[in-house]
């Protein structure tokens, strides 16, 4: 067994919030109650595109038990202003209009009014009495159709931002992005082989099991208190304050336990509405979003249309790449297109490349981030083209990837030059894996591989650690814990201080109690908030050095701290807990604190192998075996790293094989339930094997890279490649559901 310099990092302790979560005691937002709590219900548009001519709320207001009714008229006018939400930004006028429509509805499910009452049934019945008069407008949900000059316009005031210049006629195209390196025309001229194809992917939802929920209390002192399910309590506070036009200090967000998010619980949907209902009713108000509304009215991630072309030399060296990418923004400009453009060629060193990207508004819910937002769509195209090149050149799919894999010094098409990264190491681990070296036998079976990249970000994080009388520690941090981060942060602090993970009580603070912390997203928490926990520990140790010097009657410079956290000075030594306990009883309390804002991306790479069997009669694809290989930098809690890899892979499998929004001819979503929006069940997948590669990361004291996002990227192309290997049928559209696979197999016969 390899030796490790660590005592705590790399072990697998039980998570601190574990007992609460296996006994039903953990408090999620829908579990939280206040005296006099009212239940809210939101009335939503049945139409995909219509003007609101009038709203008559009188019958709802007259209903017994109703405490308030709210429409767009109750929302302050919010000016166009871009707010940065940590990972990504949003126009606040759009954010407000998405929470509650004012003049126009832009998708089926768009909120038009809300009611609070003594219980949810009364609120729902009263909402049904609200009369909304609509003037129907033509609608569009297809990306390419929406880009046409004669397409129905969603926003009369939206002018394409074309490389920084505003167009002079209104359009559904919010943004045109362009990235370029080298001379792509020359690159293709020099190429011996060129492959090119069009790809489409469907709208998919993050599919968290906990629906959005909120408890809001507009207090008599003018402060709004929110208990909510959010990936970022501070960004929730900011958005709510801006929409309500009050100061951020007038909003207190207490993050409850969060039942999944995957990028979908960053934007606010219910918070401003519940706050206004609370203000009007004088009571606290809760809203629990029905599952149908979660599908129809919260951010799915973009559908896409892509045309990608890649050229290579006979020896497999990539020379040129060209990508034209259009993502559906939904009802308002989205921004997922940016990372899509940056990721399409991010795994390979290509001398000449050009990427054009378009963010296109359509009459669908406003699209949002979903785990490595924008990267999965483009990987579906690029990673299949890599296999097509390999086939034409008669090279192994792994070999062509190893030959062109990005490494330290490679420059991406959008500019950045990679520091030390681990893609080559992942491909080597794939080459050496049991899965890759096991033969796959049987009819209609095939194997596929694919790579994936996600930036990972730093952003702002804060942490404080206070010493208890017995030398144990309370760790206060601001990252909402979506999958075990209390443990990964406490473990890093324990390692720093030389104590056990169980000596630390980690707590996620509310926005009044802890320093500003950006969202739980961007694969950043274990990296950046982990860095804050480490720095807070170092700050605590520095203070303890000064106090130890007083206690031991020596100079501070004579006190040293060993690798195991033991303090020594003037011939005396004491372990952390022992010294902390002595100092506690002998003077002022000790609190270490840190705020950090690392700017460096963490550059996560992964590679997947999948074996499939395709039923030739039905087109159904069965996953036989699956292996995820990923560079974690350093795995703090390996079980939870494996869990991220496994969970991400299965979300990717769902995206690959089944998940999609269906729209009828009237542009209304028709499958807004877990029965019809078919996410993988336990029976649909096998065990997911994992190989954690650890190449370290110089930007983190323990070498952590973010791990959460990359594993969702490779499954669709890896499965596409496996289907091709099994059937000689190339799939160019997601999902690769039975009817689509069956049809494609007929036409390729």
């Amino acid at each position, binding site marked *: 067994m390899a030796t490790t310099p660590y005592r705590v990092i790399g072990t*697998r302790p*039980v*998570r601190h*919030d*574990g*007992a609460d*979560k*296996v*006994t*039903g*005691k*953990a*408090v*999620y937002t*829908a*579990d939280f109650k206040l005296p006099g709590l009212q239940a809210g219900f939101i009335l939503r548009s049945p139409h995909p595109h219509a003007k609101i001519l009038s709203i008559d709320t009188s019958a709802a207001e007259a209903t*017994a*038990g109703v405490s308030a009714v709210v429409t767009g008229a109750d929302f302050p006018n919010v000016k166009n202003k871009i707010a940065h939400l940590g990972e990504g930004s949003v126009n606040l006028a759009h954010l407000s209009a998405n929470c509650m429509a004012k003049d126009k509805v832009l998708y089926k499910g768009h909120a038009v009014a809300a009611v609070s009452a003594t219980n949810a*049934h*009364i609120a729902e*019945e009263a909402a*049904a009495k609200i009369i909304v008069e609509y003037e129907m407008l033509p609608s569009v949900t297809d990306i390419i159709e929406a880009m046409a000059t004669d397409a129905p316009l969603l926003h009369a005031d939206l002018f394409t931002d074309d490389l920084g210049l505003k167009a002079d006629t209104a359009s559904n195209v919010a943004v045109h992005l362009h990235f370029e390196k080298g001379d792509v025309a020359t690159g293709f001229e020099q190429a011996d082989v060129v492959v090119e194809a069009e790809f489409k992917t469907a709208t998919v939802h*993050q599919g*968290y*099991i*906990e*629906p959005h929920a909120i408890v809001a209390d507009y207090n008599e002192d003018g402060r709004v208190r929110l208990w909510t399910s959010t990936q970022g309590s501070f960004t929730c506070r900011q958005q709510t304050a801006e929409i309500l036009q009050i100061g951020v200090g007038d909003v207190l967000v207490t993050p409850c*336990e*969060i*039942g*999944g*998010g*995957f990028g979908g619980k960053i934007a606010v949907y219910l918070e401003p509405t519940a706050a206004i209902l609370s203000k009007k009713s004088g009571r606290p108000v809760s809203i*629990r979003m*029905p*599952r149908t509304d979660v599908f129809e009215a919260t951010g799915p991630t973009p559908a896409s249309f892509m045309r990608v072309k890649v050229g290579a030399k006979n020896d497999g060296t990539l020379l040129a790449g060209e990508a034209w990418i259009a993502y559906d923004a939904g009802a308002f400009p989205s921004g997922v297109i940016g990372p899509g453009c940056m990721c399409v060629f991010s795994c390979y060193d290509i001398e000449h490349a050009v990427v054009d990207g378009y963010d296109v508004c359509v009459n669908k819910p406003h699209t949002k981030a979903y785990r490595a937002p924008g990267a999965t769509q483009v990987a579906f195209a690029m990673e299949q083209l890599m296999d097509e090149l390999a086939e034409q050149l008669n090279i192994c799919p792994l070999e062509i990837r190893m030959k062109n894999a990005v490494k330290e010094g490679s420059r991406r098409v959008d500019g950045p030059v990679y520091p030390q990264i681990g893609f080559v190491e992942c491909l080597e681990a794939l080459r050496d894996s049991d899965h890759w070296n096991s033969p796959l036998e049987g009819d209609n079976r095939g194997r596929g591989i694919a790579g994936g990249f996600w930036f990972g970000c730093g952003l702002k994080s804060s942490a404080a650690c206070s010493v208890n009388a017995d030398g144990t520690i309370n760790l206060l941090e601001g990252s909402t814990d*979506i*999958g*075990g981060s209390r443990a990964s942060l406490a473990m890093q602090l324990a390692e720093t201080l030389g104590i056990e993970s169980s000596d630390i009580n980690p707590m996620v603070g509310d926005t009044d109690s802890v320093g500003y912390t950006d969202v739980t997203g961007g694969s950043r928490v274990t990296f950046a908030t982990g860095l804050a926990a480490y720095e807070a520990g170092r700050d605590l140790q520095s203070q303890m050095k000064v106090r130890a010097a007083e206690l031991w009657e020596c100079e501070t410079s004579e006190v040293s701290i060993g690798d195991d956290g033991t303090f020594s000075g003037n011939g005396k030594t004491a372990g952390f807990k022992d010294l902390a306990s002595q100092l506690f009883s002998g003077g002022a309390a000790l609190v270490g604190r840190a705020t950090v804002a690392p700017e460096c991306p963490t550059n996560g790479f992964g590679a997947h192998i999948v074996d499939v069997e395709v039923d030739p009669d039905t087109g159904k694809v069965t996953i036989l075996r699956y292996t995820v290989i990923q560079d974690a930098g350093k795995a703090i*809690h390996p*079980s*939870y790293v*494996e*869990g991220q890899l*496994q*969970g*991400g*892979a*299965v*979300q990717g499998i769902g995206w690959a094989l089944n998940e999609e929004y269906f729209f009828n001819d009237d542009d209304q979503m028709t499958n807004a*339930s*877990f*029965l019809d929006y078919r*996410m993988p*069940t*336990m*029976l*649909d*997948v096998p*065990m997911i094997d994992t190989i954690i590669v650890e190449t370290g990361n110089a930007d983190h004291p323990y070498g952590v890279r973010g791990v959460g996002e990359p594993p969702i990227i490779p499954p669709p192309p890896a499965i596409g490649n496996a289907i091709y290997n099994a059937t000689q049928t190339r799939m160019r559209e997601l999902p690769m559901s039975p009817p689509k696979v069956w049809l494609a197999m007929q036409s390729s016969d």
Partner: protein
Amino acid sequence: MTTATKKIHVTTTVNGESVEFLCEPRNSLLEVLRDTLGLTGCKEGCNNGNCGACTVIINKRPVNSCLVLGVEAEGAEIETVEGIADARGLHPIQDCFLEGAALQCGICTPGFLVSAKALLEKKPGASEETIRFDLSGNLCRCTGYDKIVRAIQEADKQLSASTDDSKTND
């Protein structure tokens, strides 16, 4: 449209204790458990029987409590996630979920624990295929299921070992 329907008196057993409550005919058992009895361990993920987060055991059978009316609880024996652990501590299935990191966000966990407990009581020694089939009504979006299946297999082992021990002791 009906409002203020007359409430009905129901007597039932929840986690071994006799319980009485009043509910409207339209209230689901899930609503009663969460809102009337305060048993919020039972989660609402979809309210139409597709996610399993609200699973409880009624008369030894796992069911989606969102698809059962509160009035149907009359005379039944109901077990919820709150009843799995007792004064001696966590049940092996709970321990195995924690040791095996079989949860991430935790919202689906109560439903899985209840379904798994029902499965292991009925089918000790269940194969991986049986576990996956029987629990396919419980959705998890975080874990990819791998660690959940392994935790259930480990709990099954521990439970059968403790049964064997008690036989030996007899």
